[in-house]
C-alpha cells in the first residue's frame, strides 16, 4: 500500500482522512460503482448515522439507497438477507454490535447458513456494518466487543480493521464479496487519521494481515484501537525493544502465515485485542502460533484484553477494564 502523497490523480495517490471518512468514501465509491448496492439501518439517511459515518451520502444517492429503517433489527436484518439472496448487495448497519442479539436469528440461522444448507446454490453478498468498543462512557449495553462471536461462527467473515486505509480497502472488498461479511468498526477510532489511497479500485483482500511496523524482539498482534496505540508504544520503545506490530485486519479468515512468520523471527508474541480474554480472539491467535511455531517461541505468549467483565460506566472503572498501551508495554516487559 502506498503512502505516497504526490499530487496528481494516479493510482498511488493518497489523502489523509479519518477512519470515519475512509468508510464513507468506500461506501460512496461502491454505491457509485454498482447500483445493486444499498445501505440500510437506523438513521443512516438524513441524520447521517449516529456516528456520522454515512454523513451526507443520502444527498447523492437518495432515500431509496440510503434507507432509514424502523427500529426493527430482526426485520431489516432479515430483509437484508432476503434482498441479498435475490440479487442486491445490501450493506446493513446495526448501530451498536451489542444489539446484534436482537437480530441474531437472522444472522446465525439465515445469513450464515443459507449457502451451505442449500448446497452452495445461494449467494449471500451482504455486509453488516456495526460498531464496537468502550471508551466513551456508554456503559455495558453500548460498549461491547463481539467480533470473537462471529469470528467463531462458521459461515461469516469477520473483519475488524485498525487503520483508515484498511477500513477503506476492506469495506470495499466486503461489499464486492459474494459472502456475508460482518464489518466491526471500533467507534473510538472513528476520528483517527491516516493516509488512504484514493484509487477507486483500491481494495484489500479479506484474510491478509498487515505488518504495520517491522521489529526484531517481539511481535505485537494488535487489532482495532490497539493498532494505533501499539504503534505509538513501539516508537517510544525504539532503542530498548524492537517491536513488530501486525494488524490481522480480518479475524476470520485469519492470516496465520504472516503471524507465524513474524513470531519465527522475533520468538515472542503479545496479542492485544479489546475483547474478553477467555476462549477468544487471543486464544485463537495464540493457538495458531503454537501449532505452527511452537519451537520458535522463546517465552510464553501474552494476552492483553478485557478481563471477562462488561464495560462499566464510571470513567474510573471503564479505564480500569479497557486495554491500553501501558498493558501492552507491561506484557512486553514480562517476556523480553
Amino acid at each position, binding site marked *: 500500500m502506498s503512502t505516497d502523497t504526490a499530487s496528481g490523480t494516479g493510482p498511488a495517490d493518497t489523502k489523509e482522512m479519518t477512519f470515519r471518512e475512509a468508510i464513507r468514501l468506500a461506501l460512496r465509491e461502491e454505491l457509485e460503482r454498482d447500483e*445493486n448496492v*444499498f445501505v440500510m439501518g437506523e438513521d443512516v439517511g438524513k441524520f447521517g448515522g449516529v456516528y456520522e459515518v454515512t454523513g451526507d451520502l443520502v444527498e447523492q444517492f437518495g432515500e*431509496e*439507497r440510503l434507507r432509514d*429503517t*424502523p427500529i*426493527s433489527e*430482526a*426485520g*431489516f*436484518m*432479515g*430483509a*437484508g*438477507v*432476503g*434482498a*441479498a*439472496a*435475490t*440479487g*442486491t448487495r*445490501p450493506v446493513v448497519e446495526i448501530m451498536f454490535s451489542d444489539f446484534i442479539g436482537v437480530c441474531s*436469528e*437472522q444472522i446465525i*440461522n*439465515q445469513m450464515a447458513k*443459507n*449457502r*451451505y*444448507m*442449500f*448446497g*452452495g*446454490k*445461494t*449467494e449471500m453478498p451482504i455486509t453488516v456494518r456495526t460498531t464496537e468498543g468502550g471508551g466513551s462512557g456508554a456503559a455495558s449495553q453500548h460498549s461491547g466487543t463481539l467480533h470473537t462471536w462471529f469470528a467463531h461462527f*462458521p*459461515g461469516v*467473515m469477520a473483519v475488524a480493521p485498525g487503520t483508515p486505509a484498511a477500513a477503506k480497502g476492506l469495506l470495499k472488498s466486503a461489499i464486492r*464479496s*459474494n*459472502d456475508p461479511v460482518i464489518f466491526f468498526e471500533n467507534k473510538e477510532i472513528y476520528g483517527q487519521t491516516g493516509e488512504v489511497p484514493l484509487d477507486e479500485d483500491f481494495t484489500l483482500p*479479506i*484474510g491478509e494481515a498487515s505488518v504495520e511496523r517491522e521489529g526484531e524482539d517481539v511481535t505485537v498482534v494488535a487489532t482495532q484501537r490497539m493498532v494505533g496505540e501499539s504503534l505509538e508504544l513501539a516508537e517510544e520503545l525504539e532503542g530498548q525493544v524492537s517491536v513488530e506490530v501486525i494488524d490481522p485486519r480480518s479475524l*476470520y*479468515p*485469519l492470516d*496465520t502465515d504472516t503471524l507465524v512468520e513474524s513470531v519465527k523471527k522475533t520468538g515472542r508474541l503479545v496479542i492485544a485485542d479489546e475483547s474478553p480474554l477467555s476462549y477468544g480472539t487471543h486464544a485463537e491467535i495464540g493457538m495458531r502460533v*503454537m*501449532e*505452527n*511455531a*511452537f*519451537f*520458535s517461541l522463546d517465552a510464553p505468549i501474552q494476552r492483553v484484553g478485557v478481563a471477562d467483565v462488561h464495560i462499566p460506566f464510571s470513567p474510573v472503572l471503564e479505564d480500569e477494564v479497557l486495554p491500553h498501551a501501558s498493558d501492552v508495554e507491561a506484557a512486553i516487559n514480562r517476556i523480553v
Partner: protein
Amino acid sequence: MVVIDIETEDGQREALRRMQTIRSFDSKAGDLFADGELPGFVHLYVGEEAVGVGACSALEENDYITSTHRGHGHCIAKGLDPKQMMSELYGKSGGYCNGKGGSMHIADVDAGMLGANGIVGAGPPLATGAALTAQLKGEDKVALAFFGDGAVAQGQVHEAINIAATWNLPAIFVVENNQYGEATPVEKQHNVQNLSETAEAYNIPGFTVDGMDITAVYEAVKEARKRAADGQGPTFIEAETYRYHGHFEGDQQVYRTQEDVDIWKDRDAIETFKTRLIDAGVITEDEYDEMKAEIDEEIEDAVAEAKEAPYPDPSEAYEDMFSATVPEISQFSSQMRADGGRGRTDGGEDQ
C-alpha cells in the same frame, strides 16, 4: 407447466394434479419415515394442499416465496421437482441441496423458492427483503411468505410486515392457520378472533379465507398480487386449514381427537375441488383416477431413484461454506481427515 393458470381448464387440471402430488409425496414421505427410511424429522402438509397450490397459482413464474418447516407442499406448488426433493429427503446427491439441507431446508432460488426454514417466523423478513429487491430493481415481481398460525406470535414476523407496509413493498403474507402450533391450539396462542385482524395494526388489507377451498385462496392471493404489483403494498391473508397428520411424524397427538380431524376431512380440499371439476365437465372420475395412478408412480420412481442415488462424498461436508476460498476450512478439514483417522489435530510444520 411451472405457472398454473387456474382460470383455464388445463390450469384447473394442473392445480388438481399438483394438490394430489403434494398429498402423494407427503403420504409417501410419512410411510418412509415410519419405516425408518428417512433421517431427521419430517413435517407433512397433507390436508393443507389448497393453500399452497391456490396461492402459488396466483403468482407469476419469477415471483418469490418463502416457506416453513412444513415446506414440501410449497415446493411442489411452486413447481419444484419431486424427484430432486425426494433425493434431498434421503440426504442423497442430486437432491436440491446435495444432501446438506434435508426436508426442512429445500430451496431453489432460481425457481423463486427461497427456502423451507427450520426457524418459526424467519421467512417473512426474507420475503420482505425479496420484495425490497423487486422494488429497488423496478422488477415486476412479488414475494409471498407462507407461515403458520404459531409464527404469528413471533416478533420478527411483525417487524417484517411493518417494514413491508411502511415501504409499500410488493409482499404478500399468507398465514396457514392449521389450528395448532405444535400441540397448542391457536386460541391459546392469540387473543384475536381472526389472525387477519393483525393487518389493521399495519393499515394494510387483511382477509380470512377458507383454506380448504383452492379457489378462495387463489382469488385472495390474486387480488393481493395485483395490489402488490400496482405499488399498493402488502396484504395479509389468513387461510383456515387443517393438517391431517401430527405436527411431526410420530406425534401422538394427545391434543386432539380423531373426530376433530374427521370434521375437517369431510371438507377435504382435493375431494371438493375434484368434485367441482367433475361437475363442470373439466375432468372425469376415471381421468382423475388415472392421474392419481400416474402421480403415485412418479412418486414411487422418485423414491426408487433417491434410494439408488449415491450419498455425497464425505469430503463434500467441507464445501459450500463460502464462494471464496478460506484457508481455515481446507487446513482444519485435512487435519481432521489425515491418515483416514479423524480427530487428529497435530501437524504443525514445526514438528
